[in-house]
C-alpha cells in the first residue's frame, strides 16, 4: 500500500528535509521535498501528493500561503496536510479550523508521532 502513497515535505531547513525524507523512504513512501512554498507548489503540481508535511515560517512563500494555494487548486482528491509549527497562536488555529484537511504537528517534531499520524490518515481515521 505504502508504495503508492506520495508524500511532499516542505521546510527551509535542509536537515529536517533530509531526516524526514530518509525516515519516510525507509517506510516505502514516495517522497518529494521542497525548500519553500513556491517550490512546493511546483512539486505539488508535478506529483499530486497524497500527504503534505510543511513548515509554517518559511521564506519566499509561507506554509499558510502555500496551503491556501493548494486548496484552491485542488482536483478530485484533497491531500491531507500536516503543518509543523512552533506557533500556537490563535490566529493560525482559527485559520486552520476553516480547512478540515489541515492537522498540526508540534515542534520539536517526533518521527514516531509523525509515523502514527500518517498511519491514521492511511487507515482513514484522520
Amino acid at each position, binding site marked *: 500500500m505504502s508504495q503508492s502513497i506520495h508524500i511532499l515535505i516542505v521546510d527551509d531547513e535542509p*536537515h*529536517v528535509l533530509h531526516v*524526514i525524507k530518509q525516515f519516510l523512504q*525507509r517506510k516505502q513512501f514516495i517522497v518529494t521535498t521542497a525548500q519553500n512554498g513556491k517550490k512546493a507548489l511546483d512539486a505539488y503540481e508535478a506529483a499530486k501528493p497524497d500527504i503534505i508535511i510543511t513548515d509554517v515560517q518559511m521564506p*519566499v512563500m509561507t506554509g499558510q500561503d502555500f496551503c491556501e494555494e493548494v486548496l484552491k487548486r485542488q482536483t478530485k482528491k484533497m491531500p491531507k496536510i500536516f503543518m509543523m509549527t512552533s506557533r500556537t*497562536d490563535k490566529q493560525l488555529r482559527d485559520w486552520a479550523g476553516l480547512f478540515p484537511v489541515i492537522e498540526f504537528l508540534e*515542534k520539536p*517534531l517526533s518521527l514516531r508521532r509523525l509515523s502514527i499520524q500518517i498511519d491514521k490518515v492511511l487507515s482513514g481515521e484522520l
Partner: protein
Amino acid sequence: MIGAALLVIFVIAGIVAMDSRDKRIEVIHKDGRSLSRLLSSIALEKLVRNESGAGVLQLLTHNEQVGDLAYAELVDLSGTSLASVITKDITIPAIQLNTTSTFGINERAVHQAQNEFIEYQMPIFSANKLAGYGRLGYMEPNIGFNLTDVSYYGQVALPVFLLVPIFYLLFRRETKPLAAAVTEMQSFMKSQDSKLTLANDSNDIINNLQTFFVKVGQRMDELTNEQAHSQETTILLNYQRNRIESALQSVPDAVLVMDEMGVITFANSRLKTILGISPDEVIGLKPHQWSVDPQVNSFLSKYYTNNKSLQRSDVIEFIPEGLSEKTISMSAYPLRALGKAESNMGTLIILRDRTQEVLSSKEQEEFINHVSHELKSPLNIIQLYAETLLDDVDNDRSSRIDSLNTIVDEVERLTLLISNLLNISKIDSGNIKLNKQHVKLGSFVEDTFEKVSRAGKSSSLKFHLNTDSTLGSIQLDKELMRIALSNLLTNAIKYSKPNGNVTLLVEEKSEQYILTVIDDGVGISAEDLPNVFKKFYRSESDVIQQRSGHGLGLALSKDIVELHHGKITVQSEVGEGSTFSIILNKQSAFQNEVMK
C-alpha cells in the same frame, strides 16, 4: 387717640375761654373805674343832653369802642333819672342807690332776669355840690365766649375741627397701604422664614411694624453672620474644588465627567493630546454632539439612558477618527453617592492612549513568536536526528557521525541564541556588570575572527583579517566584546553572497581603536538602515527573510559597545555589501574626563 386729641382741644379751649373772661372782667374793672372818675369830674350840666347838642353822656354811645358797656344813667339825689343811654338791647335795671359812701366810686353786681351787669356808681357834682349820681353798667362776661370773641374762636376752632377729620382721613389713607404692607409682610414672613413670624396678628399697624422691624433687624444680623460663615465655607470649597480640578488636570490620562443626562461637565486638557479635541469643544455637549464614532456613542449612551442598575464600569478600545495610528482605551465608571448604590451622579470617563502598549505588546508577541521559532528550529533538528540515531536502522558510521555533528551544531546555535537573549535581557534590566580586564587587542581579534571564520569555512566565502601585530592592550569585558564582534562577523557571513569576502580590519588611531567588519553581501536598504540596531527589528525584504535571525544580534552588539563607552556605526548599500565599525576609546570617557 382721636378722643384724646379732642379732649386736649377742649381743655385748651376751656383754659383759653377762662383766661379771656378774667381778662375781660379786668378790662371792665379798669374801664369802669376810669370812666367813673372821668364822669365824676364833669359837671352835671355838661353830662346831660341839652338843646344845643349831645352831652358828654350821649358821646358814650358814639364811642365806637363801646366794649361791654351796656348802659349809662344820671340820677338826681332822689334817684330820678335825668338822662340815660343804652348801647345794647337791654332795659336799664332799677336803681338801688348806695348812699353809704356818697363820694366814692361804688362797684356792684346787678342781676336782672336776662342779664347780669357790673355796675359802677359815682357822684356827680354841680357847682361843687353833690347833684346826683352816675351809673355805668357793664355786661358781665359769660364763661367762654362773649360775642366779641366768637369770630376769633370760630377762626381757631373751624380749622381745628375741619383738620381733625381730614387728618384722620389722611392718616387712614396713608396707613392703608402700610396696613396692607404689614399684612403682606406677615404672609411673606410666614412663607419665607419661620423666625420672622409675628407673635400676634393684632391690627395695630404701628406695633406690628415695630415688631417687624425689630425682628427684621435681628434676622439681618443672623443672616449677616450666616453669610460670613457661608463665605468662609465657599472659599474653602473653592479651594478644595480647585485642588481636585488641578489634580484631575495633571492626570496623565484624559478625564471627562458626564452628568446623568449625558452632558459633559468637566474635561481636562489631556483630551487635546489624546483625542485632538479641546475641552471647550465637549463641555456642555452630549456624546453624539462631539463624537462621530458610533462605538463610542453607543458605549457612552449606556451610562445615561439605560436602567441605572445595569450601569457598571466597562472599557472599550477604539481607533479615533482621523488618528488611525492611535489606539485609545475608554473606561467608564458610574458615579454613586457614598453608600447609595442606586444613586446616579453621572459617569467618570477615562481615556488612555494605549498606542505604545499595543505596539509594544504586538512587538512582544512577534518577538515571542520569532524566538519560539528560533528556539524550536534547532530543537526540531536535534529531536529528528536523535530519533534517527535511536532507530539505528540505517546504522552506517558516516551517517551517524553526520547526525551527531548536526546535533552538536544545533546545540551551539541554540546556546548562542539563549546566551544572546540572556545578555540582552540583563543589559535591558541594568543587571549586567562589566568584568573589565587588560586585553591584548591583537590576540583578542585574531582569536574571535578564527572561531567565527572556522564555522563559516564550509561555505565558499573568503575571510581576511587585516590587523597590526603591534596593537596595544585595552580595558574590556572580553566575553561581552567577543559577542559584539562575533555578531558582526556572523551577520557578514549570513548576509553574504556566494564566493563573497568577509574582512575584519583593525586600526589604531591616536585615541581610538577601530574594528571594522566589511562584507560584499546583500547589503541593507536605506529604509532598513536606521533600524538595524533596534531590538527585534527584522527587515521585511525577502532576501533578509530567507535567512534565519531573531533581530537581537546587532542590538546586543550596540548595547555592549555602548557599555564600553564606545560607538558602533554602519554604512551599507543594497547589493554592494555592508561595513560595520566598532570604535573604542583607548581610555574610557570617564578617564578622559579625569585627565582633562
